[in-house]
């Protein structure tokens, strides 16, 4: 698992839900502030990260303001 794989994962995840984010903007994308993902989607995201990368992200980590931008969340996941 590396940063590029995670960026690709989030880009696909968002695209499948109708959210287009340019490749260069993915790290700055603030998924909490944008509000494009509801509770169901956020939980789906957690479960998919776990099944695809074998890493557990807790809901409180996901909703932590310091992880609100995908770049920061990617760093948190990589640090696990």
């Amino acid at each position, binding site marked *: 698992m590396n940063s590029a794989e995670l960026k690709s994962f989030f880009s696909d995840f968002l695209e499948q839900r109708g959210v287009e984010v340019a490749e260069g903007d993915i790290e700055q994308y603030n998924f909490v502030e944008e509000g494009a993902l*509801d*509770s*169901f989607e*956020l*939980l*789906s995201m*957690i*479960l998919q990260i776990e099944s695809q990368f074998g890493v*557990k992200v*807790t*809901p*409180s980590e*996901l*909703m932590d303001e310091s992880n609100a931008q995908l770049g920061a969340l990617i760093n948190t996941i990589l640090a696990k």
Partner: protein
Amino acid sequence: MRYLFRVNTYQGIGHLMRCRWLATALQSQGQSCCFFVDKNTDLDALFDSFPFDIVQLEADLAEKQDAQQFISSAQSKIGDLSSVSVVVDNYQLGAQWEADIKKSGARVIALDDIHRTHSADVVIDQRLDLSGERNYSALVTQETSLLLGPDYTLLNPVYERAVNKGSLAGNNVLISLGGGGDWSQIEGLVQKLAEQRKVSLTVIVGPQAKNIHYLHQLQSSGLIELVESPESLIEYYQRCDLFFGALGTSLYELAATLTPALTFALAPNQENDWRSLDALGHFFHLGNLKHIDFDDVMQAIYALLDNLVAVKAMREAAPVRIDGQGAKRIARFLNGEDITLKTERSQSDECLRINDHLSYRDVIDQDINLYRNARNRPNNSEKMTVTQDVKLGEHIKWWFNNQRHSQILYYQGAPTIVMWHQLVRFDEQEYLIGGWFTTDVTPSFDVVTAALEWQLQQTFKSHPNAAWIAVINKENKFVNLLNQYLGFQRSREHTHYYLATQRAFPKATDNDFNFVHLENTKMER
């Protein structure tokens, strides 16, 4: 100082009576008082026995004309009005009337309980408003003094010391609609109750009561005790076990005497937000009479009589007390004395910490309305096995007999999630069942997840041999996924989990609900 009272006598006798108690307090401080009331032949007997001078005026005039009529009448009685105070208690007379009276030089004091605009010098509203919806600041001038809240409740001075003692048999129900009321509205219910040997009924009717012929028949048959226009209800409050009736002045009299009560609203000023009623220890209010199901009321009355010890304890624990000294307090204020309130009214929700944001406490009896209101919120009830609203009567009966262990979770200090669990046994196997619903605060998904994880950990710690079984509405995508996240698995048909779930939730079919379970060892998170 002279105090002149302008009271509407067609809006319920409570207005005249509360002014009487203020006048009594003022008189005991050496002030003289006189009443200007609407002509009302129904109240002639009351006027005759009234302990203050009464001047009767034409009723139903427009504000301007009423002000002219009042000034002219008051001047002919006492002369110059520049050193008098005029107390007005009349929904038909508002800011315009008050401004006209002020022009005569008088000080104007307005009594209100329906949150109107005023130009009076002092506005008094005894209602407790925890909802914050009844802020007067935009409705009065900057110079207006506001005396707001139950510390200013105007009651007969006997309420300073009176406490409900109940009857020996523990089955006396006191019914009252206040000074007036149309008794045909509750005829079916009174007839039904009167025929029950389980309760003894005392019915109080006021001087403006309508359609009371059937009450005389019930009295003749020996089925009820009928009391007509008593001077005061105090002795009846003291010896009844449960009050049932309209929520007018009775709200404060019942709170002062700590009398168990079940009430309904007949008029807009009798509608109250449930949190404010709860704070006064008044937990059982049915809302507007028009929407009440009499069978449910019967259920409520029996359930309350069956649980009087708990019901009385709930009253006694009320954080806001009515001490019966409101009239004296207002009289002192009007005479320029300091009335700094000493009462501290904080209801501490003592919670135990779960994490930095979440805390919890066990549900207590005083949460009865919080619990029902949360359960009946559409976003909660529409996903349950029983989707209809739980009525108050059935809720009271259930509340005092249920086996659930319920807790309230606070998120950042606000009650946010109600959770419950219960241990059940089928075929010598222990199972945990439970549920959760949100209050009027909508928590984000990480809060819900943390709360549920905490509940699972706690319950498995207390019941290590039990397995959780649950049903989840198939349309509730989020909760299905959440339970999957928490480790719940689908229960296959014919397994003991499936059969236990059917027994625990007989109203849930597998067409509409997913049957799931979680063993203690499977809880990884």
